[in-house]
Structure formats: structure tokens, C-alpha cells
């Protein structure tokens, strides 16, 4: 191989990466366009209102945290099905800490609670070699049991009960960007430019304004922290020594061990961090979203977080995008039945577009399938006035299934993900 070839290879690699980023931007633009059109046509303003985007952000945070948690664990090679249980621990300790000591303590204790769950999972899988899925399921069961018991001890008779805590007031700071979104720096009420644009209901312009405003108004500090965690995770895992060692444990632990990397320690680190993030997600749910601990409030978000991680191809930005998607589905869910109904139209159009794309590419069976489903969804939209309440409830779960079904094939998980590793094992 000549030196000239070496240099062109590097340049090509960079070009490839830039192309992919541009592709994603195009796709995003297309989606905004379609949403805008559907909103304008159906008059379901909630489809693209800043309130919805705000809610999407708020509902996406726990999923994003869970997804990042899953990412840390799987990047070191350990599958963490117990994220849900660790999140449950986060909700309980977040509530209890919030009630007893204050909101910030709730956050800290929530994180610690989740981390403890992570530690249990790590000990079982890394040191004892228990099957990773079995251990995760056991952690989920244990977490549910422990929190129920603790609720009985701590909450009954103190304003709560076996399945819920007393009200938790959260005095965590909220941020709103001034000028653009009507923030109040030093008590002065600044103009709300984006809000003004949004209220004009202009095609596309208003929708984009709403999107930006949703990300700038009433942001909890925890949300900001979570969003910062995305680039921070990238930097940590891809740009630091410790991050490289952690990733090596998930790619080729035997090679890493042979070079002196303490693989067991790396896995412990990944799993405990994963638990801590899930705990933070739980604390967020209680302190920011609900204001109370309730049994079952995690509602499968730990697993949806895993789906976000898979859909995000085990990369932080991908996880963030996927979490945003799920958050949006959740937000529509809560805000407006009309918007959910309008979403049907969007899905129908998207499917029909996809069908055309497939057919052009020559993939007949996929195209026909997409087209058929698209027609069915359109008929459903046209024939009904609204979507039944129970169906709205299941939207995020159906979305998860669909996302996984579509995406699971062309992905690149860490090479040794999920594989058991015992120190001293040789490659075959």
C-alpha cells in the first residue's frame, strides 16, 4: 500500500461522515415539511405546537437517559435489561429524597438508587457469570419488590401509601431563553419572538419556530443536564483513555485483557453508570414530570430506552434522535386526541411515500407491503373521528415495535455485546 493511497483513504472517510450528516438533515427537513402540511390540512395545531415539542422534550428525557444508560452498559459488553428496575429505584429514592430532604437530594438519591441496582447486576453478571438477561429480569423483580416494601415503611401514614408517595414539590430551577422565547432575565419579561411566529400559523415557518421554541422555553435544569450528557457521552467514550478502554471491553475483551486493560473493572463501570443514568431518569419522572411517586409510573420506559439505543445504533446522537421520536409520540398521546388522529394521516402519507421509494428502487414486495399498510392507515384516518383512548395509550409501545422491526437488521452493535466473558479465556 502506498502512502498516497493512505492519505486518500482518510479523506474519503471524512467525506463519508459528512455525507451522512447531510442526509439526516434532509430527512429531518422532509419530515417537518410533511408535518407542517398535515397540520395545516387537519387544523390539528397540536401536531406541531411548541407545547407539544416541549412535552416531547420532557417525555423524551427519561427515555434518553435510559437509552444512554443502556449504551454505557452495552458498550462494555453487558446487556442491561434491568434498566426498568433501576429506573424504578430512581423514582422511589427520588421521591423519598425529595420529600425528606429537598429536590436536589431527591436527584442525588435517585441516581444512587439506580446505581445500586446497577451494582447488583454487575456483580451477578461480571463476577458470577450469571446470564445477562436472567440477571436483568431478576433485578427488575427485586426493584419492584424493594420499592413496594420501602413505600409501606416510609410512606404509609405519612401522606402516602403502599403504592404512592406524598406529593413532592420540586424547586428545581427552570430556564427559558430570553428574547426568543420570553424568558425573564433578572425579572424583566423579554419578548417572545418565536412564540409570536408560532401564533401566526403560517405554513412551515410557524412550525419551525414552534420547534425551536419548544427547546427553549421552560426547560428544567435536569433537561439541560440530560441534553449536555449527549455530547459529553460522545466525548467521554470516544475521546478519553477510559472511554477507549471501556469500549474495548465491549469489542474484544480478550485483546483488551492481553494489553493490560482491566476488563472486569470496565464492565463494572459501564453497568453502574448505566444504573445511575436510569436512576436519574426515575428521579426526573418524579420530580419534574409527575410530582409524586406512583407504582408503575415508569411504564416500560426502561425498555423503550433500550429500543432507542438500538435504533440509535449505539451512538449517543442516534439515541437522542430516537428518544426524541418516542417523546414526541408520548407527547401527542397526552396532549390531544385530535393530534393523534391527524398523526394517522401523517403516517399514511409517510408509508405511501416509502412505498413509492421502494418501488422505484425495485424492491417490489417491500413497496407493495408499505403501500398496502399506508392505504389501510389512510382509510382508518378517513373513516374515524378520533382514536380510542386505549389505542392512544399503546402508541409508544407500537412505535417501539415498529422501529425495532424496521431497524434491527442494519445495525452495528459492539462486537462482544452480550457475550459472557471470563477472565483468562482464550480466543478459540
Amino acid at each position, binding site marked *: *500500500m*502506498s*502512502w498516497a493511497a*493512505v*492519505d486518500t*483513504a*482518510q479523506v474519503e*472517510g471524512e467525506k463519508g461522515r459528512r455525507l451522512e450528516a447531510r442526509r439526516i438533515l434532509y430527512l429531518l427537513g422532509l419530515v417537518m415539511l410533511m408535518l407542517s402540511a398535515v397540520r395545516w390540512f387537519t387544523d390539528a395545531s397540536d401536531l406541531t405546537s411548541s407545547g407539544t415539542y416541549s412535552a416531547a422534550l420532557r417525555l423524551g428525557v427519561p427515555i434518553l437517559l435510559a437509552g444512554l444508560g443502556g449504551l454505557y452498559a452495552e458498550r462494555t459488553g453487558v446487556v442491561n435489561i434491568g434498566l426498568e428496575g433501576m429506573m424504578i429505584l430512581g423514582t422511589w429514592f427520588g421521591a423519598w429524597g425529595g420529600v425528606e430532604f429537598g429536590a436536589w437530594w431527591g436527584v442525588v438519591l435517585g441516581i444512587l438508587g439506580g446505581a445500586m441496582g446497577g451494582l447488583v447486576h454487575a456483580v451477578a453478571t461480571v463476577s458470577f457469570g450469571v446470564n445477562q438477561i436472567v440477571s436483568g429480569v431478576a433485578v427488575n423483580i427485586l426493584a419492584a419488590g424493594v420499592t413496594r416494601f420501602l413505600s409501606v415503611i416510609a410512606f404509609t401514614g405519612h401522606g402516602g401509601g403502599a403504592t404512592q408517595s406524598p406529593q413532592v414539590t420540586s424547586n428545581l430551577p427552570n430556564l427559558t431563553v430570553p428574547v426568543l422565547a420570553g424568558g425573564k432575565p433578572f425579572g424583566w419579561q423579554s419578548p417572545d419572538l418565536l412564540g409570536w411566529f408560532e401564533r401566526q400559523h403560517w405554513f412551515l415557518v410557524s412550525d419551525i419556530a414552534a420547534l425551536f421554541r419548544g427547546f427553549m422555553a421552560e426547560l428544567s435544569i435536569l433537561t439541560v443536564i440530560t441534553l449536555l450528557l449527549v455530547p459529553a457521552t460522545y466525548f467521554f467514550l470516544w*475521546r*478519553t*483513555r*477510559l472511554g*477507549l*478502554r471501556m*469500549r*474495548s471491553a465491549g*469489542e*474484544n475483551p*480478550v*485483546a*483488551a485483557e*492481553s*494489553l*493490560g*486493560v482491566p476488563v472486569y473493572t470496565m464492565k463494572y463501570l459501564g453497568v453502574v453508570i448505566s444504573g445511575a443514568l436510569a436512576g436519574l431518569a426515575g428521579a426526573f419522572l418524579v420530580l419534574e414530570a409527575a410530582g409524586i411517586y406512583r407504582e408503575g409510573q415508569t411504564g416500560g420506559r426502561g425498555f423503550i430506552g433500550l429500543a432507542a439505543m438500538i435504533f440509535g445504533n449505539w451512538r449517543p446522537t442516534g439515541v437522542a434522535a430516537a428518544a426524541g421520536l418516542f417523546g414526541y409520540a408520548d407527547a401527542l398521546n397526552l396532549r390531544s386526541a385530535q393530534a393523534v388522529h391527524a398523526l394517522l394521516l401523517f403516517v399514511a402519507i409517510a408509508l405511501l411515500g416509502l412505498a413509492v421509494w421502494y418501488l422505484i428502487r425495485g424492491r417490489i414486495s417491500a413497496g407493495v407491503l408499505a403501500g398496502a399498510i399506508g392505504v389501510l392507515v389512510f382509510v382508518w384516518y378517513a373513516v374515524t373521528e378520533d382514536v380510542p383512548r386505549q389505542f392512544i395509550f399503546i402508541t409508544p409501545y407500537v412505535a417501539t415495535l415498529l422501529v425495532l422491526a424496521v431497524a434491527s437488521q442494519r445495525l*452495528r452493535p*459492539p*462486537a462482544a455485546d452480550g457475550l459472557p466473558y471470563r477472565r483468562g479465556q482464550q*480466543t*478459540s
Partner: protein
Amino acid sequence: MDEQAPAVELKAITKTFPGVVANDDVNLTVVPGEIHAVVGENGAGKSTLMKILYGMIRPDGGTISVKGREVHFRSPKDAIASGIGMVHQHFMLATNLTVLENVVLGSEPTHGGVLDFDAARERIRDLSKTYGVPLDPDRLVEDLAVGERQRVEILKVLYRGARILILDEPTAVLVPQEVEELFRNLEDLKDRGVTIIFISHKLDEVLEIADSITVIRAGNTVATVKPQGVTARQLAELMVGSELPTPETRESTVTDEVMLSVRQMGVRVGERWTLQDVTFDIRRGEIVGIAGVEGNGQRELVDAIMGMRPPQQGSIHLGGEDITLWSSRRRREAGIGYVPEDRHLRGLLLPSPLWENAMLGKQTMPPFSSGPWIDRRGAHQRTVEVIREYHVATPGPDTPALALSGGNQQKLIVGREMIAEPKVLIAAQPTRGIDVGAQAAVWEHIRGARAAGLALLLISADLEELIGLSDTLYVILRGALVAKLDPATVTPEELGSYMTGAREAASR
């Protein structure tokens, strides 16, 4: 430290494992800045010796000296600290990481925890240029060809300051051009004062590249020679200890009836054709051998014949019937037997008792099952037969398979396949890991089965086995059959050169 002292000197090294003497009073002296080859057959003791030199095993007796000073290695870390680096035969690379990440892992340059990419890149480029090992640090290892990946392994050890390189069978997975590039790299390294120990069993390569050659046989150092003064044939004799095996003259049992017929078989993995246009027949009473360096399509060929990987092109016929689209199970039931290459991975249920292992592959047929039910009694009886006829050393048919030694496990597998009297037997490395006596017994069984009409496809790295058993010998290289040879008259040079692509066959 004496400048004229040998770079490495192993004196009177002895190492015994339970039941076998791996190294018996072995001596090895390597002059600084030379390429020193260590040759010997499989099991001759070369790998044990190198593991000792690299600190992975401690010798029972003898001394190791590096640059004139005696050393005691407790682990590879000590060896690395002494400037010794090992490039393993099976690469230890994380394919999803870049070259840079693989090279610096464990010894990363940092600014307070943050990776100093610039420093790493600069050092790698320096090393690359200095030692003539061109590599782009930012490419994913997955995108590299095998020869380039080997260079990453070399860079890994150079990065840690190695001045003495041990290469373990480095050309085992390379194609001819990559071998040439590797040799050029080694010459460059030598010019810069690096000492290289080159372990191989490929005599033509060794003669080409080495400055001196040590031959090891059965745990002893047999000779140390200079390549100028010896021919490949003489080296081979030193290695094997006598004349090369000549297949015994016997009456041919090959009939005219074609049992297995493979036509224009092609298998594509991603963009690459791992098998191309493979065509051959196996007749009743015939053993067809396929020789070749590991990784040239043998695995894909076996998978395609067994029905585990559908070929993109071509067809397979069993005794006249087209079985190309048949399921794996159907092929088994039709009488195709299989001795897999990796017995732990594909041949055994380790925690299960022997009688359940004897069923593997035949669980839908008598005597192991009748109707939907498993016939335990029949399974036990058959297992006892296999144990008896193939001399599997075990307390009984209920012993779990993991409790058997590797050799006995292999005997069980061979026995269970052959006792079922298959029409066609696909055997990949059937005597790997068996002691010599058992190996001979298995060969006897194979010969007996052949005389009774078995058609056998033999894929092996053991040249003695191939030459001794085959009626027809093919050579596979890069997914294609490049030669059809007569085992009775082929020479090792001829066989070796076909296996490495040095000479293309004009005809099949």
C-alpha cells in the same frame, strides 16, 4: 551488556505437561538483527517454546537470556518490558475500532485522561515510516485486508518498544501478494536492527526469508542450519524425521458410482466470493482430499454441502438426487455424515451425557428415536458400541462430554458418524488433537469404511493424513479449486506451491 551477545538465547529449556513432554532440552540462539526461523510440525513443541519466550508459560528447566542477560518472565508484561513482542497467529484486534485505537489501547498517550490523538498519530506515523509498515491510523480495522491487519499487530508491538519480534505462523492466512509484502516489511525491520523470530511450517517461505533456521522435532532441537546450505527436501526430512510419507500401495476401492456431486458452487459473503465455481465428484469407495491454507473457502464449502449456508450458485447432487435446496436435517437423514472442524463449537453438547452426544445429528433416526419419541435404550446401546469400537476412554455412556479429554471427544464424534454407515462423510480435520495411536486407529476405520463403499470428503491441514488417505487430492485457494493432484506422485514442493498460489494448475 555485551553488544555481540545473542539477542535471545534459550538454553536447555524443558517443559512437561501431564502426559506429554513438550520441550526436552531445547536450545535456541538468535543473533541480533537476523531473521531466525523456527520450523517444525504441528505438536513439535514450537508454540510451547515461543509461549515460554513470551512469558506466557514458565519453563520447568533451563534459562532464557535476552541481550546477554538472564531473565525470568512471570507474564507477558515482563517480556514486553525486555523488548520482546509477539504477533499471534490469531489476531487480537477489535474490528469496530480504528487502527490507532487498537494500537494504543492499554498504553494510550493522554493529556490528563483525554486521548492525545495528535501525539498518537504522530508516533504511529513515525513508526510506520521508520519501519516501513504503511498504515492509516484512522481507518476501521474492519475495512482492512488480512495482510493490513497483520501490520496493525506488528505496529502494536513496535509501539511498545519491541526490538525482538516473534511472529507465529504469520503467513497462515495471507495470500501470495500479502506474503511478499510481509517479507519486504520484515527486511525493512531487519535493516533497522529489529530481530525477528519467525515460526512456520512452510519450508519454501522459510528458505526465502530466513537468515538461519532451527528445526524442532518432538520437543527437541534437531538442527540449526543456514538456508544456503540446505534444500527444502532436506529440511522436510529433518522436520519429519524420515522420508516423507508415501501412501501405501493397495488396491483401489474407487468405483464408478458417483455419490456426491458438486457443480459450479459459488458462495458470496457481502461483496466477496468466498467460493467460486467449485466442481468435483466423490465416488463410492473414494476419498477426496482438499488441501489448503485455512481460510480459503473450506468452511464455506462444508457449510454449503451440509445445508447450513445456501450457495448463491451451483448445485449439489447426492447419488443422483438434487439436494441443493434440502434442509440440513434432510441431508443428514439421507445419509450425509459430518465430522466438524471445531468439535466444541459444532460437534458436542458439553454438559450433556455421552449418549445424548452420540445422538447429535441423528436424533430423528433409529436407533435414537422412533416416531416422535427418543429411544433412550437404543441410544445407550449405540453409545456403548461406539465407545467400544473406537476406544473412547470413559467410565460409561452417562458421563458428560466435558469430562472427556479432547482426543476422546474427537473419537466419539468420529465414531458416532462412522458407525451410522453414512453414504457420504464430510470430515474436516478429523484427527485434530488425537494422539498418534488413536489417529492411526481412526485412519484404519476410515480405510475400512472406504473399502465398504464410503465416499469421504477429507479436509485437513495434516499433509500426512491427506497424502496417506486420499485417492484424489484437490488444492483450494481463494475459494477455487486450483489443482487436482495424484497423492501417490505429488511432491511437497508442488503441493506447497499450489497451496500458496506460487503455481497455478493448467488443468484440473
